[in-house]
């Protein structure tokens, strides 16, 4: 079946078969390997993308199911050399170790901060609860994002 998905503002049309996942199509057919393939069970969050406005696990979405929809992947957050504030916060805070989980964290955190620029620590934890870091680098990730929230709160005061 021929499907069309708008990814990061660009229309992509591809042929898909059966229950092939959105993740697979993004990585293998659309040359967008930022979303990572790890558990394929919806338990690790490394494949997180935004589908029609909602963070989802792209490994759990059939590509045919995403036909006609709008998707934002991790590739869609930086504007050339200008990073999303969440990306800068993770860089500054050392919230990246091996980097494999980072795209999922960026997507989940960016969606939180774009809606709520000053989340509490509990709100950050809840938004990221579906993202697993096998390096267990959670402390630096959370601290970096808490600092971003604090900066946002200070700037608005």
């Amino acid at each position, binding site marked *: 079946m021929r499907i069309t998905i708008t990814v990061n503002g660009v229309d992509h049309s591809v042929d898909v078969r059966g229950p092939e996942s959105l993740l697979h199509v993004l990585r293998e057919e659309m040359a967008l390997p930022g979303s990572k393939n790890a558990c*394929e069970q*919806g338990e690790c*969050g490394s494949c997180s993308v935004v589908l029609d406005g*909602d963070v989802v696990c792209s490994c*759990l*979405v*059939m590509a045919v199911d995403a036909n006609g929809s709008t998707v934002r992947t991790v590739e869609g957050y930086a504007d050339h050399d200008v990073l999303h504030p969440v990306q800068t916060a993770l860089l500054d805070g050392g919230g990246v170790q091996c980097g494999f989980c980072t795209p999922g964290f960026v997507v989940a955190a960016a969606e939180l901060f774009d809606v709520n620029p000053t989340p509490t620590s509990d709100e950050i934890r809840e938004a990221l609860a579906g993202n697993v870091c096998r390096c267990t680098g959670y402390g630096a990730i959370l601290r970096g994002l808490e600092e971003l929230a604090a900066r946002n709160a200070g700037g608005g005061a």
Partner: protein
Amino acid sequence: MRILAGGTDLVPWLRDDLITPDLVVDIKRLPGLGDLDVVDGALRIGALVTFADLVASPLIAKFLPMLGEAAGTVGSVGIRHRATLVGNICSAVPSCDSGPPLLVHEAMVHVIGSEGGRVVPIREWFLGPKQTVLDRGELVAHVTVPIPPVPRGAAFVRLSRYAGEDLAQASVAVLSLPEGEWRVAFGALAPTPVRAPAVEAALSGRQANDGAIADALRLVPDAIAPITDMRASKEYRMAMAGVMLRRALHLAETRRAGAGPAYGTAVM
């Protein structure tokens, strides 16, 4: 044939060949299945209503806050945006988080099929792990949940290995109603979510004081049949079922009195 809505169970089951249906039918563009509204004194939750919808719904917060409390514990943000309550009871895994709340609320499952429709009480819905009374060619249009009379108080208490994407090791739902009526159900502690009528009878007409709770806890081992799996041993589950029931009873009673922690506050 299998029905596809959120797909958070179906897609990985298909990929791992745990199910091999001849046909997968996506119902997301069928009209009328996304309703979340009040009809005849009950909340109607359509087949396409996600757990994120339930968490965000003012109607759920007002009339069925314990169902919202349970919905907020399902998976993670990314799962809740896709996973539906109806899909959860159709997948019917023993740890299904909607099961205990729907059991104590005595929900009705509205099934449609080529032969017409039928309405199944949730208590008759679950047959075993991943097994329900749904027949081939049928689908669940919606679930209706009666709005309980006031004063009411309820609690959903869930145990898991970590806060985040993890299936429940055990769960308890308690509903406290006028005239001393108590309803109790357990999840992940038997082949299906189960009501506990003997436990309810021991509590009937009583306050959740030490004596009543002790009488109730004595009956828990006969109400459940936990197993050992990768998430917990049966002994741990059995012990924690009592701890969780005690907390849920206290929580429901204090909430019924208009006090206690807000719905959604973790107590485990």
